[in-house]
């Protein structure tokens, strides 16, 4: 168990809990942990960066029982952490586009911390409303080298940044400039939109999938998508692989393991659809 050392309130419903754990500190961008809030439950959580030797963090949105238990863990409270699990983003050099929705920003923040100082990175953040935007400032912090960092927020209600879905912002960015790689994490239909947009332009793209995860180690099968075992083959997949996966953007396995459709499958992205509340 790890003791929570610091709690940062990112939005009214999102908190970052920092702790010390060498293995989590060294996690690759995109890797996740199984995080146990004793008495509340255990959930897969992307490993968040945190400044300081041996430090790491989780950034959690309060929603159902387990995430609320984790969200409610105060400084000094204990959480169980196993992992890191899964593969990681293939961090390229050059002009990078990061497209995150909600807590999908978490692995992108770790990716950003691994981007080169000379890389030019554009970060597109999607949220429903202004009060739900977080990591905007951190994402925009200038890198050490000659590179740049640009952050653009989209909100569905237009209360901050541009009005509309972040997928529209991504389409526009991809149309306007040349990118060497695109990385996305968030609701699956959002990712479907981003993957399609990048693939249509022949740009390398990776997305990190979310599924029901019990073991995290490729044993229980609860996280399967097509022939992929997301916790072990992924969670990060290349765009073309995903587009060939019959489940991507179309269906996921519910807690019983039965397939369930994502809202308006393969149609317009609908943030918030699917499992979890990420």
């Amino acid at each position, binding site marked *: 168990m790890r003791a929570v050392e610091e709690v940062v309130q990112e939005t009214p419903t999102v908190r970052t809990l920092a702790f010390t754990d060498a293995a989590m500190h060294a996690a690759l961008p995109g890797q996740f942990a*199984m995080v146990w809030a004793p008495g509340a*439950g255990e959930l897969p959580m992307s490993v968040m960066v945190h400044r300081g030797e041996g430090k790491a963090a989780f950034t959690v949105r309060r929603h159902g*029982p387990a995430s609320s238990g984790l969200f409610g863990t105060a400084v000094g409270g204990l959480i169980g952490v*196993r992992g890191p699990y899964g593969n990681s983003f293939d961090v390229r050099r050059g002009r990078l586009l990061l497209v995150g929705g909600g807590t999908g920003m978490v692995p992108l923040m770790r990716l950003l911390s691994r981007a080169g100082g000379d890389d030019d990175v554009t970060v597109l953040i999607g949220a429903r409303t202004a009060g739900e935007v977080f990591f905007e400032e951190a994402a925009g912090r200038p890198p050490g080298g000659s590179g740049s960092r640009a952050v653009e927020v989209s909100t569905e209600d237009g209360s901050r940044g541009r009005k509309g879905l972040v997928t529209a912002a991504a389409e526009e960015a991809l149309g306007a400039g040349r990118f060497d790689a695109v990385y996305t994490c968030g609701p699956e239909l959002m990712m479907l939109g981003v993957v399609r947009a990048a693939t249509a332009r022949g740009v390398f793209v990776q997305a990190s999938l979310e599924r029901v995860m019990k073991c995290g180690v490729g*044993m229980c099968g609860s996280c399967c998508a097509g022939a992929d075992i997301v916790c072990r083959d992924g969670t990060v997949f290349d765009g073309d692989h995903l587009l060939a996966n019959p489940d991507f953007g179309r269906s996921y396995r519910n807690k019983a*393991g039965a397939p369930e459709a994502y809202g308006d499958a393969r149609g317009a992205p609908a943030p918030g659809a699917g499992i979890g509340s990420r």
Partner: protein
Amino acid sequence: MAPSLSTEVCPSLTIGAPTMLASGILGISADVFARVAEAGAGAVVTKSVSREPRDGYQNPTVTGVRGGGWLNAVGLSNPGAGSMAGMLAAAAGGRRGAPVIVSLVGSAGPEFEQMAGLFEEECGGAVAAYELNLSCPHVARVGLEVGDDPALVREVVRATKGATGAPVIAKVGLGSARYMDTVEAALAAGADAITAINTVRAMSIDVAAMRPVLSNGIGGLSGPPIRPIAVRCVYEIALQHGAPVIGCGGVSCWEDAVEFMLAGASAVQVGSAVAGAGWVGVFSEINAGVRRYMEDNGFSGVREVVGLAVQRR
């Protein structure tokens, strides 16, 4: 001539390699079954399905054990027999890979009869055998609670046999009654083979959290810790009944597989070991090791190895 890996599990079921995917492991997707078959498994056993879908328990449902092995109480989450049958039927068209054994779980004969009937109807040709889970140690009214009641075991085996011509395998475990009574009841009622064993009822308590780790408190222990117990059961069943046995429990390398074969198992199931570094590569690794063992020792087939250690000290 290179020795053959093919093995007769029971007279009506011969598979191409002696390693099977155990029930509950990567067990809900036909696409994944095909992949596990490509990885070398001679057969795959589905997650145990019940008549109705089950969500199972909340996480934590799986935890590693200090000192080795795994503990789980997923609570038999499964999409239900109907969903599984539909999936297998859909997959049966472009069917690749190894035989699929459907694992059934329930509380009484009629349930098993209905489920087996449903599979026979929807995808009969795609089901190589049925495995009856009489041994899940952490869910009320099913699994061990059935296995611990020999009369119920007879009823359940007969009901399944009545609904299908495919081989019926009874999966037994260490419950609170004599497991050998379960074996005897199952064989008497016509079971074609026995799988031994399921996970063993166990518990992990976190000393910092000061509470059981699994949300269900009690779960089932799997992996290397239970192998010597499972080998003993296979040996005892082979010694006392000479019945076809499938060994299960802690198989993670070829020595483990051979150990089970020497004890009397005509095939082994691999469960938790897929969580290891080689992941599903564990099947081909084990198969290669078993083949090398047969070569080195002059065996031409699995049958020559099976049961060699029985009554030999």
